[in-house]
């Protein structure tokens, strides 16, 4: 199966400028509404959220997760697929 990042996301969530715990809370709320198999793309510049809480949430839920750190832009693109 193709990487999540190479697929068209079902929805994109922009949490740039928001700090913990908002990126995770908003991610959770968005994922709850996403259909099974849907992919959420998250734009996030909060390190603790991008590198810890959101990946931890995806793992706990059993969701497929990918992260791309855009060093030049200073934020992460995170991809979660709802199973």
């Amino acid at each position: 199966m193709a990487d999540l990042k190479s697929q068209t996301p079902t929805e994109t969530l922009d949490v740039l400028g928001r700090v913990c715990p908002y990126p995770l809370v908003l991610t959770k709320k968005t994922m709850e509404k996403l259909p099974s198999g849907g992919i959420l793309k998250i734009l996030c510049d909060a390190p603790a959220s991008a590198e810890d809480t959101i990946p931890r949430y995806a793992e706990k839920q059993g969701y497929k997760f990918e992260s791309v750190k855009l060093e030049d832009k200073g934020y992460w693109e995170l991809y979660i697929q709802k199973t």
Partner: protein
Amino acid sequence: MAIRKLAFIVDKLPHKTETSRLALTHAIASQTVEIYLEDGDNVEPFLVFIGDGVLNCVKDQKAIDIYGVTSLGMHIQNALLVGLNVYVCKEDLEKFGLTEDSIIMDAAHLGGELKTQIIPYTEIEKRVEACDHLLFF
């Protein structure tokens, strides 16, 4: 496997202390605690404003102009945005001469779907009695 109901109860005035802000921050943050809990365990938080605490919900607080801090209004809107139930005591609002038009009722401009609920004190009591933990701010 257990769901713990948490009531964050605010009965203090806004801005002179950090207590109201802490209540909002902790209530919002509590929605993420499941990632650190065992599978099936979770919390169900909600916010209650009673007594002097209802003044935290007033619109156009201008806190940045007066105290140099961000308004609690935005924090309440964020709470609604992330799906926290916010209850305000009807009798205490009336005591201050406030109405639905005087307080923050929604976060629609942020995309929030929930609305602030103004309910009688007896209804607040029922909700609080059903909680596992009460946190006063």
